[in-house]
């Protein structure tokens, strides 16, 4: 399109507006082409867009002048009817699209619940999210009961065996650590006894008495250390065992409460 074609077309399109406005606009764009220079003619035509677009802008502004609407709002020129280039995607649309995706997604969820035979497609967003966990929980409980029923004949003996082993292990560890403490106490007592025994021989045979009571003291000290160590060990181990047992006992109930 040449400059002349552009201006002729523009003039024709502006035929409907008042003569004064038309001549003003035509004067402006004539000037515009003159100032841009012949070498930039194609560039200017490209930048201006179509004569229809230019005319639409002029007409819209005239309308806006009368009614004082649209044009002066904050969204104003750059994203209203005309500006096609470099216009970011209109924000509301984008949100709408995102919302659409969201709605679609949740509707989808509703349908899949429907397929499982719980609830219907008519679920709306929030409701459905509330509804969802409950249905799956029921499903889980049913499944658990079914599994339990299937497993019971074989399961009971095995379960009892496992429980027995657990109890046995716990008792054994209690016994082991208690035994350690008792052993250490006995060692201590023996040391003390030997020490006293040594002391009674002090008049009869001094070297033997010293040897005996010395070894008795050493054994006593060793026993004392062993007692302290084993008691401390028990302090660490027994709470751990208790916690372990409590956790194991709580596990089935706890899990049910969570699900």
């Amino acid at each position: 399109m040449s400059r002349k074609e552009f201006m002729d077309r523009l003039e024709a399109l502006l035929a409907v507006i008042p003569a004064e406005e038309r001549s003003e606009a035509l004067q402006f764009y004539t000037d515009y082409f003159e100032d841009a220079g012949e070498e930039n003619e194609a560039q200017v035509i490209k930048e201006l867009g179509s004569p229809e677009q230019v005319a639409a802008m002029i007409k819209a502004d005239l309308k806006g002048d009368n009614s004082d609407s649209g044009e002066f709002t904050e969204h104003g020129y750059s994203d209203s009817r005309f500006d096609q280039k470099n216009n970011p995607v209109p924000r509301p649309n984008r949100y709408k699209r995102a919302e659409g995706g969201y709605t679609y997604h949740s509707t989808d969820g509703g349908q899949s619940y429907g397929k499982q035979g719980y609830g219907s497609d008519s679920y709306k967003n929030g409701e459905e999210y509330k509804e969802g966990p409950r249905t799956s929980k029921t499903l889980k409980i049913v499944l658990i009961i079914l599994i339990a029923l299937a497993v019971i004949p074989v399961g009971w003996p095995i379960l009892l065996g496992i429980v027995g082993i657990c109890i046995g292990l716990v008792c054994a560890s209690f016994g082991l650590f208690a035994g350690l403490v008792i052993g250490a106490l006995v060692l201590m007592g023996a040391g003390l006894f030997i020490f006293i025994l040594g002391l009674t021989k002090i008049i009869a045979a001094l070297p033997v008495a010293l040897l005996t009571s010395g070894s008795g003291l050493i054994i006593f000290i060793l026993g004392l250390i062993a007692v302290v160590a084993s008691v401390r060990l028990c302090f660490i181990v027994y709470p751990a065992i208790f916690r372990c047992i409590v956790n194991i006992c709580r596990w089935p109930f706890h899990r049910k409460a969570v699900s």
Partner: protein
Amino acid sequence: MVFNTGAALLDAIVLAVVSRESEGTYGYKITQDVRRAIDVSESTLYPVLRRLQKDECLEVYDRQFDGRNRRYYKVTEKGMAQLNLYRVEWKTYSNKINEIFEGGVTA
């Protein structure tokens, strides 16, 4: 640019551009100057100039140039008052926005 230029801001920019020339300036130059700052279509500018002219913020006169009449735009007193109002508003507005954008760093 990702930010939309509202009508008021466009008016303010056009007034500011025109006011820089005490002798007034012409359509093509105004358009180029405005487009240096913001990305608006060239066809946007004429309606703005025309409206500012009707609102008596701009006055026009023709001057001989290169063997033809060229239309010049000049800011009127009312236009200057309007421009100053825009400047104040813009300062407040941009300060607030800056505060929000950069406040986390300076505060």
